[in-house]
């Protein structure tokens, strides 16, 4: 199943609706990395609320997405990891190191507003 990628202002939102195969994940990765440049997005939100399992491949792909998008000059945030999923991931030693996370879509947007900001000067203003 293909993951729809929505453009919302300066951000891209990929909302995963059902369990994904490894191929779907790779496809999601490729299209996000491609679109973030085409749409000139500053931030990407990957919503995994609907996922009730995250295996090592999914974890690695999501980490790859984050790193690749960072290289493309945008910030990624993963939102909506379920408590059970988080617990299982940690127990399996699957860490999303260096990957920003947020509770839900709203939090994710708030995070991007702060870190990827609509404009760079916002960030500096906050630092003061």
């Amino acid at each position, binding site marked *: 199943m293909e993951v729809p990628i929505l453009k919302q202002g300066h951000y891209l939102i990929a909302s995963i609706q059902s369990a994904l195969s490894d191929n779907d994940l790779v496809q999601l990765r490729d299209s996000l990395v491609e679109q973030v440049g085409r749409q000139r997005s500053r931030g990407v939100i990957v919503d995994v609320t609907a996922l009730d399992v995250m295996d090592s491949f999914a974890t690695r792909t999501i980490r790859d997405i984050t790193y690749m998008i960072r290289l493309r000059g945008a910030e990624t945030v*993963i*939102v909506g*990891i*379920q*408590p*059970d*999923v*988080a*617990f299982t*991931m*940690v*127990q399996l030693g699957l*860490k*999303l190191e260096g990957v920003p*996370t*947020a*509770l*839900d879509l709203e*939090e*994710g947007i708030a*995070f991007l507003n702060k870190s990827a900001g609509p404009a760079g000067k916002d960030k500096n203003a906050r630092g003061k």
Partner: protein
Amino acid sequence: MDPETRTLPGTAHHAMQSTAELLRQLVSHLRQNRTQLREEWARRITEARLLTAMTKEEVFAEATSVYDNYVEALETGTFEALQAYARGLSERIIPRGVETDEVIGIVLLLRDVLARSLFAKYQNDFALLNRILDAYEPAANRIANTVAVGFVQERERVIREQQEAIRVLSTPVLQVRERLLILPIIGVIDPQRARQLTEQLLRGIRTNRAKVVVIDITGVPVMDANVANHLVQTVEATRLLGATVIITGLSPEIAQTLVTIGVDLGKMNTVGDLQGGIEEAERLLGYRVIPSGETTEHLRT
């Protein structure tokens, strides 16, 4: 065994006696010498410094009922009554701090006392003594077994009960401010409890939409590598939900332990005490607590 003994001339008349008959004989012997054997047993218990948590009278009273139950079990060959008695006994003496080895010790002592009295009684008829012991030993072993198992089971039941009590006591996840949760942990953390704590905390984060969690471990007496790793896991899982953890109340001992065992606490945000933790959390959330008198002045800035 029987056909073989039957061929021995000297034991021919004994061989006719069945094991049950021998046991009956044995039991009546034990009944006749009840007072003397019981006293002998109580004396041996005191000598061996067993059951020191109990008074002499108590030891004697318990010895009497154990003795009677013992003989009864030998007589009837059924162990249900003894089992029930052993359980009751354990229930009475476990709170007094009686240890497993003491209980097993006294039962073995009784076995020894009785065997000696049998030796004394039948010393002139070696063949009969042999057969009496053949009848006695298996039953005595089963009795010792039953009592020991009863005691251990009772102990385990007590332990389970206490674990359940600790579990019920478990830790609340409290919201002190919008998006700020506190998790005060008191007592020893075992893997099961750690798991439960983490699950509770993660649910709490989701339902309260928490952004910062303060975990206070002032009430945790000891921390080993396992518990520390659980803590690290909890912090990691919390981060996956987009929340930040602040750990407070690390005692000097725990700090030393953690550094010594080399737990990676690099990702953990630690603050000295709960107050400091809450202040730090408020800072992260963008709150500023100010005395009411200064409200207007600060609002302008």
